[in-house]
């Protein structure tokens, strides 16, 4: 019917287009906020942090600080013109500590000075009188005292008490996983520039420009339309620049407001690590009832998170943890309770996976215990508990798992690596080696996509076609390295059938696309891609009308392909048509909008369909431990990752590898250490160890699951990728447990929590040796 050529455009969907800033990255010309030249007169700021975990702030005296050279302003909570509240979910979370300091590192005051050194020096001269109060530092203490930052959450099905009693076998246990600093390479930073009248322009390294806009507006007592927030790129974020960026931007804006000058606040790494939140550590307790085959009949679990001093995003993190406490398993009778414990530590926050990793860590501890108790392979017990297809397919929160492909994913993995053979190699090695022991384990993952809170699942985009055929694209998502910009550009290129180089994505701005959600929950491409597709579709329809009139055919016969627009065998270049539209006074600009369908969530009841779909994956990992020192190496990792029909396999591969290694860090070297006074001892890379290149398994193979289009109607049937692979690293924890268990002939469950520092591994080894002697 049409003569549209089979020729593909360059950089459409499914092609491995490079990150749009790759050349800028390698030449150093990609600009991060601190690289952008500021106007003369711009001030630099520094924070004054509480040295106490819990203290009443009796007085703040700025006299000595203000007298220091170059100092232009000093502020504390009392100097806030609007409302000192930047809480993302609940209320009452101050940007600057008000009356009490609730953790070591709590920002109490801030200074603006001509230079950064002057600001930091003056910050040390602020005299604050504290009345020290006793702190609560651990989850256990908070549990004992019933200290929570938010109400308990519960997901329940069946009657767990009687079901536990009725189960033939029963085990109870406990597992712990540590927190994790985001360690984005670019620290928190914001630049606030006061404009005319009451306007405030904020450049922020944030995943959530809208929340920064709201936070700044609240602090300054302004309507939202007076505040514009821009972000071009972040040097990494991982959840750490979702709510936390608002603190930094808010304080910069307060100082800018006070001085009427642009103010930049860039945190030193130590301040960043002490003042801003991290992944939640969890204490998990369980009681499980099961049959002799390993089928779980009843499970009662408590997920207690260290939320830190305020709620921040903790309620949502806990909801996600509970919604992932099933991982891939059908739990007929189950009670999942989640507690956000209040402690005098930094308020923990979003971090890639957002509770999902901790939720799965808990259930995998249960499965591991059941398997060891029955002396069955982990894989066998798992397989007996997997969600079925058409039966046993409802989650504890009442959502039917309609897209279950976990058995296929596990089969792909097994097919690729031959687990049985691998296992026998490990056993042979262990028989021959007295000091070094190897372990092997797999890990299946099912991760729900969408924000639990239904409202957040909406996005906007703005597309302009210029008369030369080039396209300007803007959307609510932010670029933090995850390749969102290039993916959305591909989507728009595909829609218009033009080469991706003609699509330019510009900095995210609250002035262009309003009321956005955070770029989080892996949802960036899903939502913004659909919104951009909507915008492009609207423009395309108008262009098609013009083309139809031009060629004298019905609009339905117009085909966009290969940078041209066809009507049968006649065609126009895309740019020519754009020019023609303009001449005929047809708008070439449109907004686009998307709301995720099908989803709903009742947090109170712990029921609903919170997720549009699930992403699956599986991993097998081999580790070796030194039983004399507890040192460990991850030797091999084999991954299978579902990403639907990938929009960009190169980006998705990078996300998978990066997330896995980040998960590896969480479970191994990344230990957060506080002293008895609540001071974080690991507040820089000298003490806090994220993985380096040598820590990546020397054999590391990632397979993107082929031929697996999303069952749901997502953007080009792709799936979200940002978070799910992180949880594949739980295989490393299980493999280390396997290595420890080998010392007791695999009969006993090892006592090994995360992070698995040499110290924890050696303790587990010694314990295993003692118990099995």
């Amino acid at each position, binding site marked *: 019917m049409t003569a549209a050529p089979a020729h593909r455009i360059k950089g459409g969907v499914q092609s491995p287009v490079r990150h749009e800033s790759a050349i800028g990255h390698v030449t150093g010309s990609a600009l991060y906020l601190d690289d952008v030249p500021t106007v003369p007169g711009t001030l630099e700021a520094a924070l004054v942090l509480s040295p106490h975990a819990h203290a009443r702030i009796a007085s703040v005296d700025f006299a000595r600080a203000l007298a220091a050279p170059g100092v232009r302003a000093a502020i504390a909570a009392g100097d806030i013109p609007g409302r000192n509240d930047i809480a993302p979910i609940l209320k009452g979370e101050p940007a600057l500590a008000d009356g009490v300091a609730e953790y070591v590192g709590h920002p109490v005051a801030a200074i603006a000075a001509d230079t950064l050194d002057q600001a930091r020096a003056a910050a040390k001269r602020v005299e604050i009188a504290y009345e020290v109060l006793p702190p609560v530092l651990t989850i256990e203490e908070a549990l004992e005292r019933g200290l929570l930052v938010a109400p308990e959450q519960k997901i329940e099905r069946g009657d767990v008490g009687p079901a536990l009693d009725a189960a033939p076998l029963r085990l109870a246990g406990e597992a712990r996983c540590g927190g994790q600093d985001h360690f984005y390479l670019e620290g928190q930073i914001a630049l606030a520039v006061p404009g005319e009248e009451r306007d405030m322009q904020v450049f922020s390294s944030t995943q959530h420009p809208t929340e920064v806009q709201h936070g700044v507006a609240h602090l300054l007592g302004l309507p939202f339309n007076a505040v514009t927030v821009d972000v071009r790129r972040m040097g990494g974020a991982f959840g750490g620049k979702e709510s936390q960026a608002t603190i930094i931007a808010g304080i910069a804006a307060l100082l800018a407001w006070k001085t009427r000058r642009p103010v930049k606040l860039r945190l030193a790494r130590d301040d960043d690590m002490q003042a801003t939140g991290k992944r939640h550590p969890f204490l998990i307790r369980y009681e499980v009832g099961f049959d002799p085959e390993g089928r779980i009949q009843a499970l009662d679990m408590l997920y207690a998170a260290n939320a830190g001093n305020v709620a921040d995003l903790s309620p949502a993190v806990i909801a996600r943890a509970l919604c992932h406490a099933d991982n891939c398993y059908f739990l007929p009778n189950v009670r999942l309770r989640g507690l956000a414990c209040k402690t005098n530590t930094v308020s923990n926050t979003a971090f890639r996976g957002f509770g999902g990793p901790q939720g799965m860590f808990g259930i995998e501890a249960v499965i591991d215990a059941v398997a060891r108790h029955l002396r069955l392979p982990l894989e066998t017990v798992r397989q007996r508990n997997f969600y079925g297809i058409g039966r046993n397919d409802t989650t504890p929160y009442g959502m039917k798992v309609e897209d279950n492909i976990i058995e296929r994913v596990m089969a792909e993995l097994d097919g690729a690596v031959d687990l049985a053979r691998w296992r026998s190699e490990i056993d042979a090695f262990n028989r021959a080696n007295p000091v070094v022991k190897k372990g092997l384990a797999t890990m299946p993952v099912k991760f729900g996509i969408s924000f639990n809170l239904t409202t957040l699942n909406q996005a906007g985009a703005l597309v302009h076609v210029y008369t030369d055929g080039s396209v300007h694209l803007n959307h609510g998502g932010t670029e933090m390295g995850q390749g969102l910009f290039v993916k959305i550009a591909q989507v728009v290129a595909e829609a218009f059938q033009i080469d991706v180089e003609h699509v330019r994505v510009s900095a995210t701005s609250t002035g262009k696309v309003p009321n956005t959600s955070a770029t989080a929950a892996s949802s960036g491409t899903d939502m913004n891609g659909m919104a951009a597709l909507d915008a492009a579709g609207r423009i395309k329809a108008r262009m098609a009308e013009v083309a139809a009139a031009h060629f004298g055919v019905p609009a339905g016969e117009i085909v966009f392909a290969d940078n041209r627009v066809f009507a049968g065998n006649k065609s126009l270049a895309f740019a020519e048509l754009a020019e023609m539209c303009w001449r005929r006074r047809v708008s070439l600009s449109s907004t686009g909008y998307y709301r995720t369908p099908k989803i709903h969530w009742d947090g109170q009841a712990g029921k609903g369909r919170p997720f549009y779909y699930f992403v699956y994956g599986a991993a097998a990992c081999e580790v070796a431990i030194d039983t004399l020192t507890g040192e460990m190496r991850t030797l091999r990792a084999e991954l299978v990752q579902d990403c639907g029909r990938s929009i960009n396999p190169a980006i998705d591969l990078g996300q998978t590898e990066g997330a896995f290694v980040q998960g590896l860090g969480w479970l191994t070297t990344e230990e957060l250490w506080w002293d008895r006074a609540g001071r974080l001892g690991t507040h820089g890379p*000298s003490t806090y160890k994220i993985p380096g290149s*040598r820590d990546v398994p020397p054999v590391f193979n990632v397979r993107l699951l082929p031929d697996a289009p999303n069952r749901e109607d997502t953007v080009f049937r792709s799936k979200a990728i940002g978070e799910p692979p992180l949880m594949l690293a739980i295989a490393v924890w299980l493999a280390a447990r396997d290595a420890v268990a080998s010392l007791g002939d695999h009969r006993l469950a090892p006592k090994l929590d995360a992070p698995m520092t040499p110290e924890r591994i050696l303790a587990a080894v010694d314990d295993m040796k003692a118990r099995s002697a």
Partner: protein
Amino acid sequence: MAALRFLLNGQRVVEDSASPTMTVLDYLRGVRRLTGAKEGCAEGDCGACTIAVAWPHGGARYRAVNSCLMLLPQIDGAAVLTVEGLAAPDGALHPVQQALVETDGTQCGFCTPGFVMAMLAFRQGGETADDAAIHDALAGNLCRCTGYRPIVDACKRAAAAPDPLAARAAEDLARLSDVPPGIGYTRHGRSFYAPRSIDDLHQLLRQNPEAPLLGGGTDLGLLASKERRGPPVVISTQSVPELKRILRGPDVQTFGGAVTYAEALPCLDSDFPSFAALVRRIGSRQIRNLGTLAGNIATASPIGDTLPCLIALGASVVLRSAEGTRRLEVESFITGYRKTDLRPGEFIDAIEIPRLGNGQRFVAYKLSKRFDQDISAVIAAFRLELDRGRLAEFRAAFGGMAATPRRASALEAALTGRMWRRESLVDVDALVARDFQPIDDVRATAAYRLRAAANLVRRLQLETGAGPAPAGLDAL
């Protein structure tokens, strides 16, 4: 120095006004507006600030260093390359840049300029690009996004292409040969001295009794970088040729008081491979290109990695002042927590390490949370000699176990003379506990330190006793 003179990306720079305690990173970003190098930590651990420097005394090649730790005058007379200076004039990327693009080795890109420079320095070294060498070369650079696989691949890919900058260091240094070496740079009431001879050094020390010596600045530089307060006067040892001497005598190896780890390594490799392997785990290449043995000794940290090794080896420091020279065993030179017997006007002229006698062996171990670029929880160093299956001589020194690195006297006394087999080690936990009362801190608990220290003696026995040594992790 009337002014600082150096080459920056091939351009001559005469710097006449910047403060001598400004860091090179702040200078590049703030004064030169070269914002490719980033600040990720300001403590030498993330590598985002990595640049490459060629020094006249350093062989004609560019080496990676952390610009966040360096004081600006440390590049006086040197040639500096930053990420902005790698692409050809026509914009063609350098092979290391091109390779990173092709392997999708960048995500957020914030770490990338640092990796590019570390990779360039690696390329300039002309080593074989195998995994072990690559990890060694990249240990000073952190990436939080990619998981490193594509970056490691890029190193391999770049190794296959010729380095267009191969001759660049020699050319750049030749262009600097007419630059008169300065010995002092004073601005804003602060001074940096780079004496050219021992006599000048004596004199400067006399005139500035409070001024610290600066070796590589990997300890001292933190003051300027993190604390934002560089000392008002510093005296660098790096331009005193005598302090750069490395002598391999029949009985002792001598390392001058300004010899860097990188410079010492080839010599250590030949006589003390286990010591050399441990030195390769000190910081990163960036750190080892700057940091000196003398600096490690003078810092006298309980977790200074070389100290237990030097103590177990019976090494001495040669201390020199205008009044004369004295020799002290490293063991007696360290007098307390971060305290030494260094007297005013004195400096470490050299470190002397006795070479191993026939039948003597030396083995050192380092335990840390991460293999590379991590500070030790425990360091153990042993020198031993076996005589018909018996421990005839046994020196054991530990770091991370007390306020100073020191010998384990109860352990040494008890084990010396024993048959060297597993069964002889039943009381080693108790012996170690008699020697040390370590503390809990960020790196480990006291309990772990004690247990692991005892187990390192067990590991030593397995590796040096009769019978085949069981495979260790490093063999995997």
